[in-house]
């Protein structure tokens, strides 16, 4: 029992309520309080990141101990993989909240904004930390309902339309997930992920199992915007207020989509080879189609949103390669490398995509447009934004020494070692097209028309600059994760928990 685990859910929930009550009477309370709470959570999550290692901490809600090794309470689980994702959520959350201090002045109803923000963080932390299938569903709904509201926060035509699309597809996804959970409960008679694993290991009906897997994959795939399910993502992510876009694109699709897919398909289901080929195909499709959809965009935020689909494709692709190799039972060292590359790219994407959305927001804040054709020559007026966005663009396109290069390199090396030469070639080509797309962004936004006279443009206020610079430093620091000592401390525990088929289940049931 680790008493720190419930804090990840309780603190932001309490913060949301306090903001609604106290924020009415004390002006400025909402901003300071949200930032402090998220800084606190980020500190705890860093503590877990460095101390968890190979351990698995369990917190049983309500103190319900297991009976005859059958878990009956709701479990909260912290292992290496969870620690990484929790860390991403709270750190990017803190930086976005701090960034919003100046940005949110353009909207009314600041209290609602910060309360919804805290609720979204609570939901995502809950999804990531929960070891219980139905609990995942409940927290997922908390986070996505606040995301629906935040997407529609501007209450103009575009925002409302995007929010409606998001809600229809999000509701469909929730019902598919709920249906899948029902089918699992029907056969396994339990909701604990570790216990379901043992229940299914005693034998199961193949067709039934496949049907459940497809329901769960399409449900969470809709939340993660893998390519056949991506229709809502560009609208929703480009219409939200920009700090929220950074949260949605940088964190939400990972925490409620990719994380749950990886967790369930490695630690709960036993994946057959044909199914892992399906997952890899979806990943490849996302990677290729996403980048081709992105390259023709002139709205910066839509461009970035399509790149999110493409970069998530990289993660799913490399995790899928790991799954194929595990299902075949051959070359476990390559499977480990592929999964490590996927997780590394997941971390990196949070950093640079969050940063890019914050840059887009800074540009929009200063000159009031998102159209690339109406920009130009901003490098002279906004040096900090220009420099940080250069770092992020080079990171996402995979230029050394930034973090994106190393994760893409690991993915491509793993694909070649696993003899998936075609996928490796595609990954390289997509990376080059990404570079082209971001060079276009850099040129049209910052360097074109240097003599263009603009009225009074000045650099954005301090909180915005602070968040952007911290994120760009993080982009550089994350490159250190390839150094063997650091990698073994942070990435390897996460990979081990995924590749070892029994460790997760046996450790949790044993506690």
């Amino acid at each position, binding site marked *: 029992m680790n008493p720190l685990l419930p804090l990840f859910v309780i603190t932001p929930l309490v913060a949301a309520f306090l903001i609604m009550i106290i924020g009415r009477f004390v002006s400025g309370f909402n901003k300071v309080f949200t930032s402090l709470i998220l800084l606190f959570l980020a500190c705890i999550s860093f503590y877990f990141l460095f101390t968890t290692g190979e351990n698995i901490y369990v917190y049983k809600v309500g103190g319900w101990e297991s009976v005859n090794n059958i878990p009956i309470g709701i479990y909260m689980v912290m292992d290496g993989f969870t620690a990484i994702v929790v860390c991403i959520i709270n750190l990017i959350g803190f930086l976005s909240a701090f960034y919003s201090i100046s940005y949110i002045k353009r909207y009314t109803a600041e209290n609602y904004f910060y309360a919804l923000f805290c609720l979204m963080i609570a939901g995502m932390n809950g999804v990531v930390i929960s070891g219980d299938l*139905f609990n995942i*569903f*409940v927290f997922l*709904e908390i986070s996505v*309902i606040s995301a*629906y*509201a935040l997407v*529609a926060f501007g*209450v*103009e*035509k*575009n925002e*409302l*339309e*995007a*929010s*409606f*699309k998001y*809600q*229809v597809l999000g*509701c*469909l996804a*929730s*019902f598919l997930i*709920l*249906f899948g959970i*029902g089918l699992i*409960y*029907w056969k396994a008679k339990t*909701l604990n992920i570790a216990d379901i694993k043992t229940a299914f290991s005693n034998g199961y009906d193949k067709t039934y199992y496949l049907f459940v897997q497809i329901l769960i994959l399409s449900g969470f795939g809709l939340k993660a915007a893998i390519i056949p399910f991506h229709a809502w993502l560009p*609208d929703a992510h*480009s*219409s939200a207020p920009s700090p929220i876009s950074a949260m949605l694109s940088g964190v939400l699709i990972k925490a409620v989509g990719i994380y749950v897919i990886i967790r369930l398909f490695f630690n709960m289901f036993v994946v057959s080879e044909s199914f892992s080929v399906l997952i890899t195909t979806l990943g490849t499709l996302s990677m290729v189609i996403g980048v081709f959809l992105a390259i*023709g*965009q002139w709205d910066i935020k*839509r461009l970035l949103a399509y790149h999110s689909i493409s970069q998530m494709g990289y993660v799913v692709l490399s995790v899928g390669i790991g799954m194929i190799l595990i299902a075949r039972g051959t070359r476990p060292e390559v499977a480990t490398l592929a999964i490590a590359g996927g997780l590394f790219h997941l971390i990196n994407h949070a950093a640079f995509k969050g940063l890019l959305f914050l840059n887009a927001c800074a540009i929009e804040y200063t000159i009031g447009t998102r159209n690339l054709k109406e920009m130009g020559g901003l490098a002279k007026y906004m040096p900090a934004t220009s420099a940080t966005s250069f770092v992020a663009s080079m990171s996402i396109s995979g230029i050394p020494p930034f973090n994106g290069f190393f994760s893409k390199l690991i993915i491509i090396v793993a694909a070649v070692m696993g003899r998936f030469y075609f996928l490796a070639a595609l990954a390289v080509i997509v990376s080059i097209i990404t570079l082209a797309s971001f060079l276009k962004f850099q040129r049209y936004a910052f360097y074109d028309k240097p003599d263009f006279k603009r009225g009074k443009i000045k650099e954005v206020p301090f909180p915005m600059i602070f968040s952007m610079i911290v994120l760009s430093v993080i982009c550089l620091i994350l490159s250190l994760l390839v150094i063997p000592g650091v990698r073994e401390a942070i990435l390897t525990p996460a990979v081990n928990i995924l590749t070892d088929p029994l460790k997760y289940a046996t450790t949790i049931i044993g506690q």
Partner: protein
Amino acid sequence: MITYIMCFILFLVGFYGVITRRNLVKIAVSLSIMEISTFLFFALIGYVDGGAAPIVDPADPVKTYVDPLPQAMVLTAIVIGLATTSMMMAIIIRLYRKYGTFDIREIKNLKG
């Protein structure tokens, strides 16, 4: 078995509605139908033939009870469903004020 199949048919009816209807409110209603079919399915999987309400009776230790856990889950899911439906209705009202129509073909600012 037939009840489960009916449940799935209800799910598909709702799905058909979401795909084919053009009216925002009708889409929301179709989503509610899908939601209800899922809840019904949950209530059905907890049913045990001849089972009593799950309140432990100390006098009769071998009594059969229905499974209480799906019922608890359905209650939670209904609350969540209420939140999603009301959120969606709020957005629909706002959309109607902005566009002056419920027709989804008229609401197409975002594309590309």
